[in-house]
């Protein structure tokens, strides 16, 4: 593989691939933008039914154009055919939904497979039309960028510009529709028509993308970028931008790579590129990714363990001394082990942690002693725990014998503000609180 050719392709410097790469990149961006709304409206599957239902239209359009003596493979004609049967498919889903009690998924499953089957049959039949070669029509199934020419490019880019402009124009209305369509109707917004416009936009992107991406995979082009974007942000505007960019990048990579290996279908490479971005987003996404969530969980777990250790130490000091103020004396590991249940290996790990944080010191005798800052921290943690226990007993009617466990689960989340509220609620502001139950 010649790296120079790869670079030239990616940077649109190669004349014979420039068009394709640019067109598919724009397509990806538009699909990412409009797909966001399709996803938020929870209609992803309807988009899939739509794309599959375009196939019979392609076959029929080819037959009609051939019969009229025109070239059977003129792109505008084929796309008009695709649009018509695609929309028919959507209407049929809606009709089934409205008139029967079938669930959505069943209605879509039926329409999707029936139309696709019909399309395959029709494509087979039109191959027998004399004088016209239908070879290449099946590229609409898997997508092929090889046959794109200048006039196709204008058609595709023109459609994409119009759909993007319409989406941006009614961004506010679409957002309202997707979030709360009932509220939108009570406010007089024509929700039915907004849904029709949204489906129209999806149809436009699907149909112009058929040639390059193929009808089986175009749905992934609409859905993968917004789902990937959602992992990074909770802000709709950011999500729309990100989804557009992710779509564009997948399109750009997919078209470039498939242009270099001419036997690789563009649709597949595009979807694989998008899927890789999705996977990375799912793992690392700042807002809802798996890894950041796991790290937050680990951090909390560490905090909880540390609080348990310090509180246990403090409680042992209380139990072994009768007079106040409490003296900070060394205690043995055995006492700690007896005081509370620790899972295997947990205690040594927590102690290592606490030593690193300078909360606990190990005496030459092997005993443990709270450091000065550790002692203060332990006293604060114990006090919070008891405040919360008292609150549960007085305000939530939890029996004193059960309160320890319930308090255990929540106290680690108590912030300074809540502690102040608890103090006010319980009229307790003194620094030492006795445990409401035997320790």
């Amino acid at each position: 593989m010649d790296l120079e050719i790869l670079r030239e392709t990616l940077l649109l410097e190669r004349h014979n691939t420039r068009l394709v790469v640019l067109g598919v990149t724009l397509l990806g961006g538009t699909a990412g933008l409009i797909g966001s709304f399709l996803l938020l409206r929870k209609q992803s599957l309807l988009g899939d039914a739509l794309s599959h239902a375009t196939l019979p239209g392609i076959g029929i359009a080819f037959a009609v154009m051939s019969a009229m003596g025109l070239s059977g493979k003129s792109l505008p004609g084929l796309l008009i055919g695709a649009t018509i049967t695609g929309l028919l498919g959507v209407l049929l889903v809606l009709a089934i939904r409205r008139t029967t009690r079938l669930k959505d998924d069943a209605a879509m499953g039926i329409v999707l497979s029936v139309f696709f089957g019909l399309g395959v049959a029709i494509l087979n039949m039109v191959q027998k039309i004399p004088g016209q070669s239908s070879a290449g029509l099946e590229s609409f199934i898997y997508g092929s960028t090889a046959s794109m020419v200048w006039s196709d490019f204008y058609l595709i880019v023109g459609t994409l510009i119009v759909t993007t402009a319409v989406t941006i124009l009614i961004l506010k209305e679409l957002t309202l529709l997707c979030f709360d369509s009932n509220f939108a109707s009570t406010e007089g917004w024509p929700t039915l028509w907004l849904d029709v416009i949204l489906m129209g936009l999806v149809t436009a992107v699907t149909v112009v993308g058929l040639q390059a991406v193929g009808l089986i995979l175009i749905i992934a082009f609409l859905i993968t970028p917004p789902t990937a974007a959602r992992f990074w942000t909770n802000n709709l505007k950011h999500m729309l931008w990100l989804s557009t960019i992710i779509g564009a990048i997948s399109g750009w990579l997919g078209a470039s790579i498939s242009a270099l290996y001419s036997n690789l279908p563009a649709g597949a490479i595009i979807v694989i590129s998008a899927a890789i971005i999705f996977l990375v987003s799912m793992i690392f996404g700042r807002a809802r990714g798996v890894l950041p969530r796991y790290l937050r969980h680990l951090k909390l777990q560490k905090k909880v363990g540390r609080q348990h250790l310090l509180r246990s130490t403090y409680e042992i000091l209380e139990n072994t001394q009768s007079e106040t103020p409490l003296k900070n004396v060394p205690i043995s590991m055995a006492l700690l082990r007896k005081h509370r249940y620790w899972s295997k290996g947990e205690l040594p790990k927590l102690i290592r942690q606490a030593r690193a944080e300078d909360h606990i010191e190990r005496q030459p005798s092997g005993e443990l002693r709270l450091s000065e800052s550790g002692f203060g921290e332990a006293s604060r943690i114990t006090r919070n725990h008891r405040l919360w226990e008292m609150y549960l007993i007085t305000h939530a009617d939890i029996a004193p014998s059960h309160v320890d466990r319930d308090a255990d689960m929540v106290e680690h989340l108590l912030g300074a503000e809540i502690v102040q509220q608890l103090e006010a609620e319980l009229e307790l502001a003194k620094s030492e609180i006795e445990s409401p139950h035997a320790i």
Partner: protein
Amino acid sequence: MRPEHPPEFPLAVHDLTVAYHRKPVLWDVDLNIPEGSLTGIVGPNGAGKSTLLKACLDLIPTTSGEALIYGKPYEEQRDLIAYVPQRESVDWDFPVSARDVVAMGTYRKIGWFKRIGAKQKKQALEALEQVGIGHLADRQISQLSGGQQQRVFLARALVQDAQIYFMDEPFAAVDAATEQAIIELLKSLNARGKTVLCVHHDLATVSRYFDHLVLLNMRVVASGPTSETFTRENLQKTYGGKLNLLDDVAQALKNVGRP
């Protein structure tokens, strides 16, 4: 003009029947809600309380009958009405902030194509402050508690600046503090002459919260001032004792046209 439903009533329902798949949910509902009332709509589960609100707002098709807002159909009176749907009716994972949701209450005034501006943002923030969660304006809505989410919906209704407030179970599954805040808000709206209709299910608080009451179980069992309507006998009719006849008719209707 119907003589029994004069236009001074903010909401008049005439002979309303609603059916889902041939099964009647509301049956010949006839109501006049007085202006400036704080009305509770109370009844058992499945009594059609939410359905009544939705039918009045044209959200679901009615089999017969009509609802009039100050004597006119709803389409002509949208500006007078604010609707607070049930909290579970939307996806709270949606990528918007509390302020964004509240600003949706201004969309109708802004009109097509235009974006919300500084004025609407300020309005939204003020409404959030009014319901006590101004400090959470920029929080994504899934990071709010149930009570806070309910307050967001209320704030959205506040920016609509309506005359009549339709509220679907605003007290469902909220904490005590939120319940208190909501009822105070409703009372203050009421004090400013607004009419509030509220689907409610907690019988214990009915007489404290509402001055007018509609007892509903597929049909209107009783409707009137709470002091007269909230009686043991009426409650028994609403909740106790199966309404056998209605059930039978419903079943019969359901079976029409089936082998």
